[in-house]
């Protein structure tokens, strides 16, 4: 399953992002997950919490999560957090 994030992911937008992605996860019937960040124009450390939270939920289903196409700023933030150790980046 591809999950594409759009716009800005910060404290204000995080609740909606969590709710929307969790609704997809609840539906079930999908395989491994790719979080496509190519259309995410801004993300702060709140976004790291959002991604890790979704990772934990998906991992419980026995599935893997990868991250695709982060911007340079988001990539730097994700590297800093060490998140790629559990959610590898794919091209």
């Amino acid at each position: 399953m591809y999950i594409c994030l759009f716009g800005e992911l910060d404290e204000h937008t995080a609740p909606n992002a969590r709710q929307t992605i969790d609704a997809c996860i609840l539906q079930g019937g999908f395989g491994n997950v790719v979080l496509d960040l190519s259309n995410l124009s801004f993300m702060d450390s709140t976004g790291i919490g959002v991604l890790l939270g979704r990772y934990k939920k998906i991992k419980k289903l026995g599935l893997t999560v990868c991250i695709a196409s982060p911007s340079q700023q988001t990539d730097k933030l994700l590297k800093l957090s060490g998140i790629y150790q559990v959610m590898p980046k794919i091209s």
Partner: protein
Amino acid sequence: MNNKDDKKVFNQNKMTISVQSKTVNEALVRSSVAAFCAELDPTVDQINEIKTALTEAVNNSIVHGYDGDIKGFVHIEATINGDTVHIRVQDQGKGIADVEAAIKPFYTTKPDQERSGMGFTVMEAFMDNLKVVSNDRGTVVEMSKRIKA
């Protein structure tokens, strides 16, 4: 006025903005400060780093300083001095009990929530300098970044 004085005046500028402690204002603050920094002709990476670090500081004030109480205000001051941007974020919230611990990566006072505990780590990584002063009357975060040509 000679050329030297012209340059001195051109390279000094200041803006202040105060916003209510509401998360919707984070985007307004970072966009405003980013626009203010444009006169230094920063790269896209540099401006994104400033926006991210600033958002972390403002978010700390809103989420931790005021603990979600929207009656508080966050005061942001940005100063251009030569080729360096100085940013000061101040709140009158409850303060940070242990600044030394709060600056460490993955430290969070809200482990029940999906908090990464990376706020100050991001500020340190994306800016050149970071100073945090806090007591029970509020917190002041000062950070700066040189915009290299």
